[in-house]
């Protein structure tokens, strides 16, 4: 259920791409994605999985509207990607934690809270969600990689976004934390938010409601994790991925 705007027509996917083409590095750059069709269902945790360099970050940048040279159709929450009305409804976590190293955790959150005009109670709530309350007074420069990543995630949660776009949010976290964060993602989806989560670590696949396997800018497969295993007659996501790659090659 959307919290900032009326719910789009039922069945409207959170993200819908048709004939999507993305060029990185400017006009004389590289075609990273060409002719991509995909649907990200709403109110689900959708994993965007694939090897490094496959185009995950480029696709997510296009979805949140910060990537130039994007052509084709790309609709987000029923609006064209980059539409100013979307800016309040999307929470984005970049691959490298985008936090101000010389500010404390709370100061980082407070800044974005002021921009979004949400109160201190939201700051406290998201700090609890990502289990960072005990570090809120610490300067970000003095945090571990995982703690920085969680600070960055907390910032994205501040505005209670309808769509969360998370670029490898759990990389470098210990197993317990990873499990807790995936539980948080599912809580958010149960509350109506749509999540698009990228990862190059295949064993995160089973934690998603639905998978999009992206390789060299092309959609290798999509579906529920169980279906993909069944279809490829494999037992792990990694094996399924390899089977799909070999399928595509033959």
């Amino acid at each position, binding site marked *: 259920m959307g919290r900032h705007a009326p719910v789009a027509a039922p069945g409207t996917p959170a993200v819908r791409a048709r004939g999507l083409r993305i*060029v*990185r*590095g*400017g006009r004389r*750059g590289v075609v990273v994605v060409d002719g991509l069709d995909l649907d990200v269902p709403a109110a689900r945790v959708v994993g965007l999985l694939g090897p490094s360099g496959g185009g995950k970050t480029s696709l997510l*940048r296009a979805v*949140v*509207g*910060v*990537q*130039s*040279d*994007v052509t084709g159709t790309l609709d987000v929450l029923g609006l064209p990607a*980059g539409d*100013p009305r979307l*800016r*309040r409804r*999307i929470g*984005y*976590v*970049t*691959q*490298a*934690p*985008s*936090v*101000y*190293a*010389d*500010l404390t955790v709370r*100061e980082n959150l407070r*800044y*974005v809270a*002021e*921009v*979004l005009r949400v109160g201190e109670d939201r700051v406290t709530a998201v700090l609890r969600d990502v289990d960072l309350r005990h570090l809120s007074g610490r*300067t970000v420069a003095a945090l571990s990689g995982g703690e920085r990543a969680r600070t960055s995630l907390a*910032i*994205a949660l501040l*505005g209670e976004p309808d769509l969360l776009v998370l670029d490898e949010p759990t990389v470098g976290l210990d197993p317990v934390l990873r499990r807790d964060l995936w539980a948080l993602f599912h809580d958010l989806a149960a509350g109506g938010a749509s999540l698009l989560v990228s990862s190059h670590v295949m064993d995160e696949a089973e934690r998603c409601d639905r998978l999009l396997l992206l390789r060299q800018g092309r959609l290798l497969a999509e579906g529920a994790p169980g279906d993909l295993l069944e279809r490829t007659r494999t037992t792990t996501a990694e094996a399924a991925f390899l089977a799909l790659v070999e399928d595509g090659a033959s």
Partner: protein
Amino acid sequence: MSPLPTTGRVLRKVGHDHRTLAILLVLPCVVLGLVGWMFSGTDVVDRFGPVLLGLFPVIVMFLVTSVATLRERQSGTLERLMAGPVRRGDVVVGYAIAFALVGAGQALVLTAFTVLVLGMDVAGDLGGVVLVAVLDAVLGTALGLAASAVARTEFQAVQMMPLVLFPQLVLAGLFLPRDQMPAVLEAVSRAMPLTYGTQALQELAAGASLGDVRGAAGAVLAFIAGALVLGTLSLRRRTP
């Protein structure tokens, strides 16, 4: 939306960085102190002090601003900011206000030091000297914001200083009065913002009042506005 959240964030960052703060406030005083010592017993500090008061803020604030904003572009924080509802002008103006306040602090400390410790005796309006020095600080920040859009690396950002500021310093009329320059250089000099700040300070040192230099001060203000518009336009939501 307003620029103030960004202003607060930048000021908090500078506030945490005591070493930078000390360098910003103390270093110019040390350099001017050396000048005063070297020329003690002459009227050099009285005649050139005001002009130097305007030069430090413009150079220092240009460097500080262009490096700080470039770091923001590279760290991903700007990318996330641009995905959100913040207005581009608010980010640029937020930065400008924050560094203008820092620059104003620097100009005030430096003026107080030159008057109280070095015994600078300004023939014209001392309040005018402070005001133009602050304007120069804001100018340095605004130019730094515009220049940081062109630079891709911190190394390039630092190189922008000689590129943008050195020609202005050479042609500002410090070394040769403007009306004695070759016609072409005089015309170029008139198109450069620092020329007007320097001119105002020279006139104030020679006994002018604040009212006498309002034309030159207005020109500096116009350049500040122009540089801020340029900085906003060059800040792109979508990047390659």
